[in-house]
């Protein structure tokens, strides 16, 4: 068990929905490491929540510290307002061109969870469109001064669309990145045009109607996203906690979808971690399911340790090594069985996104992309021999 640490304990306390005046005042009574606290809060995307919690007049915080924290929060609020304005403009542009779009995370999640676009931290926009609309959506954005880092023709390359999960377009004048997605949970292509109203709910931002996923799809999406990235940001954990606390969830529906999409481990991983940190209320049936997956309890311990170390050491730009993330992703994959070499072989023999950019092969020659992982495996084998 890790020793208590004031910064870690304060940040966790600030993320909770409850206000424990006594506990917070004890934590704050001898606290002086404000710069590190602000740094970690910002890195983990929870600075607005820290401000909202600590500004309570029942807490003893130096006036100057609170003003500094408020100033940082206002900077975040301004950034969020700018990004939200761009989201509404983009969605409006898509609507005018008959492109159905689903806004993910970012301003819509903030609005859904807090009824306030300023209480999450986000730096870009994630928008899901139907695969058939991808080219047109990208073209529209390019006409608005967004640039892609590879030719737009790749959006019509079948292998590309199969293996990639998003398209990045950046407006360098505004310093804003938009990620266009066409898959749900990285590997499921939805018929968005056909099922748009079944999949989505409408949210109002700046008097513009924006569509985002219904709560169940969103919950699944957030759990999978967080699990794939080792829950290395506290904000992602808070997102799931608040989505469940502040919105109605059809638990049976989300369980069915997790099962049919074979993402049970990642889904229950998300639920376990919010329960560990924030004691999020979950139905008994869900709690029972969580106990069945032994591997997620092991990974949960690793995640909590990593978060603790990351916060107390305030490592700048530190991320978990990719090899560690890959290992966790394998453990959290429903198809992983440590007795099965077949899974490991398929995992190692996959084409990655860099391979696709080396050459834009026509669809009928796309099998030739497998030369790249074959060469990698051979190189790896030679290195081991040496």
């Amino acid at each position, binding site marked *: 068990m890790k020793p208590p640490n004031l910064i870690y304990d304060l940040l966790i306390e600030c993320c909770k929905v409850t206000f424990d005046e006594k506990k917070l005042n004890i934590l704050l009574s001898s606290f002086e490491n404000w710069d590190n606290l602000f740094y970690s809060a910002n890195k983990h995307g929870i600075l607005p929540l820290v401000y909202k919690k600590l*500004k309570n007049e029942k807490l003893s915080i130096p006036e100057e510290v609170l003003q500094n924290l*408020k100033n940082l*929060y*206002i900077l975040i*609020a*301004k950034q969020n*307002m*700018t990004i*939200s*304005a761009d989201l509404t*403009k983009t969605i409006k542009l898509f609507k005018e061109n008959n492109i159905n779009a689903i806004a993910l995370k970012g301003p819509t999640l903030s609005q859904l969870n807090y009824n306030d*676009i*300023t209480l999450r931290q986000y730096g870009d926009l994630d928008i899901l469109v139907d695969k058939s609309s991808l080219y047109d959506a990208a073209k529209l954005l390019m006409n608005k001064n967004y640039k892609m880092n590879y030719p737009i023709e790749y959006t019509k390359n079948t292998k590309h669309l199969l293996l990639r999960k998003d398209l990045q377009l950046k407006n360098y004048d*505004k310093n804003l990145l938009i990620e266009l997605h066409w898959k749900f949970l990285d590997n499921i292509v939805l018929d968005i045009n056909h099922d748009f109203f079944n999949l989505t709910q409408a949210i109002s931002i*700046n008097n513009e109607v924006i569509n985002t996923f219904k709560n169940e799809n969103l919950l699944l999406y957030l759990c999978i996203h967080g699990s794939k990235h080792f829950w290395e940001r506290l904000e992602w954990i808070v997102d799931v906690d608040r989505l469940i606390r502040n919105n109605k969830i059809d638990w049976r529906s989300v369980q069915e979808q997790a099962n049919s999409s074979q993402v049970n481990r990642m889904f229950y991983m998300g639920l376990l971690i919010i329960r560990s940190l924030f004691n999020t209320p979950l139905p008994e049936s869900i709690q029972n399911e969580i106990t069945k997956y032994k591997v997620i309890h092991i990974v949960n311990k690793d995640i909590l340790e990593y978060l603790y170390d990351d916060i107390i050491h305030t490592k700048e730009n530190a991320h978990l090594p990719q090899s560690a993330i890959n290992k966790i992703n394998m453990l959290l994959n429903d198809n992983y069985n440590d007795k099965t070499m077949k899974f490991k072989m398929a995992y190692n023999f996959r084409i990655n996104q860099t391979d696709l950019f080396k050459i834009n092969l026509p669809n009928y020659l796309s099998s030739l992309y497998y030369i790249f992982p074959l060469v990698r495996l051979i190189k790896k084998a030679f290195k081991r021999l040496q």
Partner: protein
Amino acid sequence: MDLQKSYSISSSIILQTIDDESLLMDEDTQHFYELNSSGVSFWNILKKYNKLSDSFNEILEYFDVSKEQLENDFNIFISNLEDQGIIKINETT
């Protein structure tokens, strides 16, 4: 300032409340304007009308200040908003 003039608020203005203050942002220019709590009250009243005198009279009822003092504050407030392009004072009454 001629209070008989009418005004219009730019359609690209977004308001975001932060504690007891607010931020106004022009979507087109991405300029920000911070309003304190009194400014927020002024703003909410401005949005209801399109004639300066109507807004002024309601603000005068709302705040317990003399007409002369309010005239001064109101003029400064409107001038600042006009300079920022947030409202436009129409030349005809």
